[in-house]
């Protein structure tokens, strides 16, 4: 596998009684922001959960930063972070305590974690809420704290499932800026979103998945060339609407 590849899925399938993901091949390069789009139930979340190591594929192989996820899960997970649409938080912990726990799970040293935690909380405007339990946080604050947790160990690959759901305009802007700076610094991001404008503006490449299969992939221009053109919304609807 090339050193330039961050994530590679080879012929990955997953069934839950019915097929959720079928023979999926996907390659995402380092320093790339990749948007995985699809209608509800298309298999986006299942794909991301398999990449994050939460679900084992029935068949196929997943390599993260050149590491086989099945045979070396700890080494592969060390390089990535997963943020689901429902933030994985503890209601009775304060933001810094949450970051302390996540840093402990990833084995981040105190010299790296302490300044990074402070920096992330400042950046995401959560420092003033540092003494509050997260149970009182709004949806947007929770999402931002979960993102800070995902970034505490400076992952090379960031896997985000609907990261902008429930965020107000200012918070969404903060998160988008953070993702772009992560990519500019050489990090890789794969995200799913139903907000197509976000994918249109931010993603370098876009994959469209339907019924568990990748039906189209490429830059926005490449996707436009395959259809009658227009906005990403037009392209998406043309590709996913029944023939």
């Amino acid at each position, binding site marked *: 596998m090339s050193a330039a590849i961050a994530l590679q899925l080879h012929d990955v399938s997953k069934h839950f009684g019915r097929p959720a993901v079928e023979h999926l091949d996907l390659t995402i390069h380092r320093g790339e922001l990749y948007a995985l789009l699809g209608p509800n139930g298309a298999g986006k979340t299942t794909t991301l959960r398999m990449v994050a190591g939460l679900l084992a594929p029935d068949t196929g192989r997943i390599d993260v930063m050149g590491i086989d996820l099945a045979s070396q899960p700890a080494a592969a997970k060390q390089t990535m972070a997963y943020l689901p649409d429902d933030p994985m938080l503890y209601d009775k912990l304060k933001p810094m305590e949450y970051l302390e726990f996540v840093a402990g799970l990833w084995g981040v040293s105190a010299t790296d974690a*302490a300044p990074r935690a402070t920096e992330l909380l400042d950046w995401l405007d959560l420092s003033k809420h540092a003494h509050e339990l997260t149970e009182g946080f709004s949806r947007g604050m929770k999402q931002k704290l979960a993102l800070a947790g995902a970034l505490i160990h400076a992952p090379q690959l960031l896997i985000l499932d609907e990261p902008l759901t429930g965020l107000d305009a200012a918070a969404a802007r903060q998160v988008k800026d953070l993702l772009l700076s992560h990519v500019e610094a050489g990090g890789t991001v794969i995200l799913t979103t139903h907000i197509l404008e976000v994918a249109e503006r931010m993603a370098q490449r876009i994959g469209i998945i339907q019924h568990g299969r990748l039906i189209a992939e490429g830059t926005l221009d490449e996707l436009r060339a395959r259809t009658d053109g227009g906005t990403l919304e037009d392209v998406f609807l043309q590709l996913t609407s029944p023939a």
Partner: protein
Amino acid sequence: MRGTPGSAIWLLQHETRMFWFNNGRRRKQRSWLAPFLVLLWLCLHGLAFFLLRNMPETPESVLPFVAMAATLLLVVLATFMFSSGLKGSVDSLFERGDVDLLLSSPLPARSIFTVRLGAVTLGVALVYLALAAPVVNAGLFIGHPEWLAVYAVILAWAAIWCALAMLLTLLLVRVLGARKTRVVAQVISAIAGALLFLLAQAQNLAPSGGPDALQAMIADHIKPGSVFAPDSVLWWAGRAFTGSAVHLLGLACTAIVLFLVTVHFTHGFFVRGLQQAVSTVRARERPAAVAQGRFGQSLLQVVLRKEWRLIARDPHLLSQVLLQLLYLLPLGFLVLRSEEHAAPGVAAGLTMLAASLATSLTWIIVAAEDAPDLLLASPATMRVVRRAKVAAAVIPILALVAIPLAWAVAHDAATGLLMCFTVAAATLCSALTGLWQGRPASRNSFQRRAKGNWVATVVDLVGTVGWAATGFLLIRAASPGQSAYDARWAGISLALALLTLLLAWGTRRRAG
């Protein structure tokens, strides 16, 4: 009868529908239960009629004593009704999620609050009405129509205690805010429920004298002219229970007045104050210092700190766990009063207490993990995480029982060490059973944890009893002059405890 949309009757129908929906949804997988309960209820009618058909007339002279007994029964019911009323008030204000919808509609706030309080009252009274029905209805057939007063008394009694519960809930909202009210009301509700048990054990807690002394004390207090004399005003509610029209009227008026006063003085706060309390995050004084984390700790340390923080900051859950201590206190007094069996009994009691606490804490820490995906997505070794979780459950319990165990060792080294062995073993076995058998659940379902996983519950119970019996029998066997009989049975109970542990391991759930 269908109420006009927007009327109080229409709203009451909505509440009734919600009541059946909520209760029916919980039991959707047990569709046989409702017909079975109805059949059982009808059979109870037959049984009550059969038992009461030849009941002799109650002499006039006995009626005051019947009223006293009825009053005591009503006091018992009051603790249950107040406890349920608090739960119902909290649920109807915070959990239902339709308060905003109703208050944003053109319905008068007073009607909404009246119907909601009425629904809480009816919900609380319903179970006692159903329980009383077989006897009261049988009374109709055997010539005691005055027994119908029981229905009115139950309704009035429920209205009084539910109104008081609602007043307390709203007072707590005003003083503490919505979030803390939920917790405090749930804790008070749990303690109110446990209070009855402790009162029932009052005789065991009394220093000495036994049942005869208690009887003499009661006789002294109820003699004519005393505060508790049979003609005292204290037995008013009980007289209403026996069918006295004047007393029944008085009780009903008290209930209606209290209900209306509650509605009149609190419906405004219900609308303004509660909405504000629910939607506002209360601003507290913040320390000037910036929060500093403790980074760079081992995986074991971070898991321990996280688990203990979560438990310590959940007073509702903590109170439910510690209530188990409260329930075992009277047993401890019972044991200590018997000199001969003190040490084996204390060993059995402590073993059961420690194992029971371990079961609860392990459930909270392992099964009710809030973010299992975070743990799975991390590179942390799950074996270490799971060991840390067991340690997080076991360490506080061993710290709690360390003092009585140290006392036991100091008192008699051999007995104390045997006690240490069974307590530690039972604690660890319960924690391991919870680890191997735990199913993912929400912390909110703590009180229902046994229902969803009865195999684990039975295995854990048998193991706990096995260890308690081992402790009891081993210490008895070690006492001077005992035969090998106890030692043999101790071996059998030890084998049983180990076998259940093996069974828990053999049928364990796959990690992750």
